[in-house]
């Protein structure tokens, strides 16, 4: 079995290669030199857009007749998945987080906005994989690295604004303290930081906190449309626990919730919970941790 993997993010590419390593032979198209994860060939590109990358993928596929094409579900990955799905007239199974093969292929993905998990037996050949759900593992052997020669694209970039990515990648954090709208204001983050520091953790947040109010940078958003995290410990502070948020924390080992509303849905999805005002609970916890 052979598969062709695409990602425009080196971390996601590493996760996907590690997941399929030893299950099949892997060739990768990526804008990063992801040679440490067990792929046979890495084709590194630059200046890739949806048009020239789709052409390149199709060309590779025509040449090598891969059994499966697997793309990371990034903004660019999804565009290319749609284009090649049409060009090859092959259906694409979107957003899977599990791929098992014993005879038939069985995949899993969230459906109804994260409310359920669809387990499907499928004959599809193209898949997109949501980022941050597998663990990337480096191996000793290095892949062959080749430069991918792309056609020129019809798209033109007028301007590019790097996001103020805040460095630490929350998908790798072992301990996360995550804040929600219950915090009330950006200034109140100060009151949470002592807990983050005492635990040597990372801070993250719900969508309103990261996207609407911008109390935290966007790359700290946890959830269905944010990052899927898998820490040993996830502490949800002032987060109600809506289904789209929960979809991002299913793989946390232990979840602790602090919320003043005892009916908050997060208490149905936590291991330990404290019903109380975060502004008194958090300082008390910090105090106890110091002892």
């Amino acid at each position, binding site marked *: 079995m052979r598969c062709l993997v695409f990602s425009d*993010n080196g971390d996601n590419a590493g996760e996907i290669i590690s997941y399929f390593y030893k299950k099949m032979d892997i060739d990768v198209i990526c804008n990063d030199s992801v040679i440490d994860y067990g792929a046979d060939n890495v084709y590194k590109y630059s200046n890739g857009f*949806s048009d020239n990358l*789709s052409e390149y993928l199709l060309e590779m596929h025509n040449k090598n007749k891969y059994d499966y094409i697997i793309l990371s*579900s*990034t*903004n*660019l990955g*999804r*565009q290319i*998945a*749609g*284009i*090649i*799905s*049409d060009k090859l*007239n092959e*259906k*694409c199974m*979107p*957003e899977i987080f599990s791929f098992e093969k014993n005879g038939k292929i069985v995949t899993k993905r969230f*459906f109804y*906005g994260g*409310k359920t*998990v*669809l*387990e*499907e037996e*499928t*004959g*599809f050949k193209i898949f*997109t994989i949501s980022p941050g759900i597998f663990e990337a593992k480096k191996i000793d052997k290095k892949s062959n690295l080749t430069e991918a020669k792309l056609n020129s694209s019809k*798209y*033109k*970039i*007028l*301007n*590019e604004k*790097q*996001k103020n990515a805040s460095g630490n990648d929350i998908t790798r954090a072992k301990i996360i303290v995550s804040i929600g709208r219950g915090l009330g204001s950006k200034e109140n983050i100060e009151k949470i930081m002592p807990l983050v520091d005492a*635990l*040597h953790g990372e801070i993250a947040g719900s969508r309103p906190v990261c*996207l609407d109010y911008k109390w935290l940078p966007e*790359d700290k958003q946890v959830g*269905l*449309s944010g990052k899927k995290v898998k820490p*040993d*410990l996830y502490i949800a502070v002032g987060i109600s626990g809506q289904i789209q948020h929960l979809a991002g924390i299913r793989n946390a080992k*232990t979840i*602790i919730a602090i919320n003043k509303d*005892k009916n908050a849905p997060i*208490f*149905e*999805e*936590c*291991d*330990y*919970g404290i*019903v109380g005002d975060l502004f008194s609970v958090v300082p008390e916890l910090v105090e*106890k*941790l110091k002892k």
Partner: protein
Amino acid sequence: MDIIVLIKQTVDMDQIKLNDSNEAITENLPLKTDILSKNAIEAAVQLKEKYGGNVTGIIFGTEKATSSMKEAYAMGVDDGYIIKGYEKSDPLITSKVLSDKIKTIKNDLIILGNQSSDSYSGLLQGLLASKLNVSLLSNAIKIEINNGNVDVTTESENEDIIMESPLPAIISVAQEINEPRLPNVMKIMAAGRKNINIEDTDIKYGDDDKILSNKAPENKRKKIVYEDSKGIDEIAKILRVVK
């Protein structure tokens, strides 16, 4: 500026209940317009208001989709087509039905959501761009027309990119692009009286995909919730261990 906006109707996912074996009960659920379809409608109507032209809505759905089309009319969509025959999320089929219809309507721009709220597939944008052979600009948080070109600010994982493309083009929008308007009663009443074109399709769904289960994710959490101050001590103990 003639714009086509693609609108999906989904079940109201907040109303989904589970049966004894944790499976979603999806029969007889209330329906609603997909979240990003509403952002797509708002974006299309705003462009019409700025540059003039006509907005046509298309839904591949069932006869029940009239409620979503009326909502779209109330928000400012001018004409609407409902194509009946939708059975399930199958982006390849949906894109075939939609592109066949799109080809019959004069347009400069096609607007849709980046990822629909039930399936999250995000595949339609690419499928349609390929089938219609037009430029694709994705995850837009801003759309502007300049000298016959469209400039779109695309939000992606690490950067915001402004891309330029000639028309016609297809644009998928992100939720951050706008706040969909809430039409007033007059608009809603007027929308109720407007004609909706309802058509059939003879598309056939295949059986290359078999659903083994559709259950709520397993919940193995301990759910030990403290409502008194004893909780602080217990939780502090746990934190000391992991730290």
